[in-house]
């Protein structure tokens, strides 16, 4: 019997993963996330910014990571708009980041009665990754002379007093690429502006390096980080918290499967030894 535990057919595993991932979405039950220091640090920093402070959010992710990254973006927008901060959104590693930003930006702005060009702006996309960050640290208008609609940035009230990244209160990079490393190495290390990173689960362990070294003020690691931020901004039933139940059930299933696989493996070894 133990031997069969090590040979569960692939279709069964796929079926179980599907059920574990899908069922929690129908139950619509959430469990409030425990707040970790790295996420609280981002929240507290934004909370400490005076009204009208400009912040930059770089959406460096594409459609494949929308479920993981978009809740963090929306929670950050909620916080920034509620605090009446000036929000500037851009992307520099993938053109898709521009479109994922557009999925939420106008909708969230409308919810908080914010005016485009006065309270928030979408700079757009410029290719060049590290080169973009280096230039933004010197002169924003050398990279983005117009916004995504073609309006000159210098004419917009939202850009008042903002010439380089040294003039913004906080830069947040939400990334599913190496953009986080670029922001730290070519931006924060060179110009010293406050930086926070949000990332997918695959990338976030690498960002703890910068957090423990004090190079970033905080982290929003993956869906877990987004779920914590949702709790902090008073939305404990948001998409990230809903997704976390699904993630929890898949994680638990995976660990149980690994345990069963090990039981089967040990049984197989003993059978071979006896033979």
């Amino acid at each position, binding site marked *: 019997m133990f031997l069969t535990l090590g040979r569960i057919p692939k279709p069964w595993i796929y079926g179980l993963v599907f059920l574990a991932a899908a069922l929690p979405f129908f139950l619509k039950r959430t469990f409030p996330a425990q707040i970790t220091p790295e996420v609280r640090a981002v929240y507290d920093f934004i909370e400490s910014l005076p009204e009208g402070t400009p912040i930059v959010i770089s959406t460096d992710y594409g459609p494949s990571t929308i479920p993981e990254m978009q809740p963090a973006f929306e929670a950050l927008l909620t916080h920034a708009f509620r605090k009446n901060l000036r929000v500037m959104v851009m992307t520099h590693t993938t053109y*898709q980041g521009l479109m994922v930003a557009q999925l939420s930006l106008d909708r969230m702005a409308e919810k908080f009665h914010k005016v485009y060009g006065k309270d928030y702006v979408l700079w757009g996309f410029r290719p060049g990754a590290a080169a973009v960050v280096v230039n933004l640290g010197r002169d924003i208008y050398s990279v983005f002379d117009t916004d995504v609609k073609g309006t000159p940035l210098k004419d917009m009230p939202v850009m008042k007093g903002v010439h380089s990244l040294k003039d913004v209160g906080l830069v947040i990079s939400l990334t599913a690429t190496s953009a986080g490393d670029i922001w730290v190495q070519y931006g924060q290390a060179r110009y010293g502006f406050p930086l926070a990173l949000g990332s997918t689960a695959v990338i976030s362990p690498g960002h703890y390096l910068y957090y423990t070294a004090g190079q970033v003020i905080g982290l929003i690691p993956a869906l877990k980080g987004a779920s914590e931020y949702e709790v902090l901004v008073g939305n404990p039933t948001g998409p990230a918290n809903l997704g976390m139940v699904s993630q929890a059930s898949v994680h638990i299933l*995976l660990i149980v499967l690994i345990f069963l696989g090990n039981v089967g493996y040990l049984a197989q070894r003993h059978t071979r030894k006896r033979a």
Partner: protein
Amino acid sequence: MSGPLVLVFLSGLFIVISFFIPRDPFPKVELWALRWYYIVVGFALLLGVDSLVLHHLRRIRRGGMQAFYSAVLLIGFFVTLVWGIVAWKQFGSPFAPHSHFLWIFMNVEVPLEATMFSLLAFFIASAAYRAFRARSFESTLLLVSAGLVMLGRVPLGQYVAVPLLSAFGVLLAFELYHRPVRTPLDRVLYRGGPVLVLLFSGILVLPAVFPQLAARIPGVASWILTVPQVAGKRGIEFGLALGGLAFGYRILFGMERGYLR
């Protein structure tokens, strides 16, 4: 051959100097050089498009099932391109808010990419089930740490972590007990202390302190992420940085010429 090498040396050296001397004229010229970088990136993109189209045209000419996939790709590519140009004319940018180009993004690209990425969950589950075996001390350590992080970072995970740790403890005790005894040390290891500790903790201690232990699991997961994980990763990053530095030095001085081929 020496022309491109001199150009690479001079531009590389200039960027290095401007990094360390942030006084005029260096920042201004660096800005100008970085603008040139955007232009080069744009042309590199054109080269990519050219290579993609030619490759798939060749596959269509060869025929067969692969030709069908290539035809789908080329049709998709040109429809997107033409649609983008039309949107550019109408809205000033294909990515402008309310541009109908975003329809392609929302209804084709988002579902396609989300599907591709979602498939990873199934493959990872199957691969983890087959490959994550407690074959040695190191693999067992990796397995336990990964399990603690996976369960400690999700809601309710901590309550499952403790019984699973108990079960793993008992499993490991049985595994050690069944190992062949050849030396007196083997007798101590496989019939004595460690086995008893694993059995005792698996059956009695862990379940008894279940609530206290469960409450600590998220903290343990955070500790694994911020201390041992960071220590290992930092070592790797140092190695990578030094390797990058050496590679940059080789390119700058013309010792590495792979990019010229």
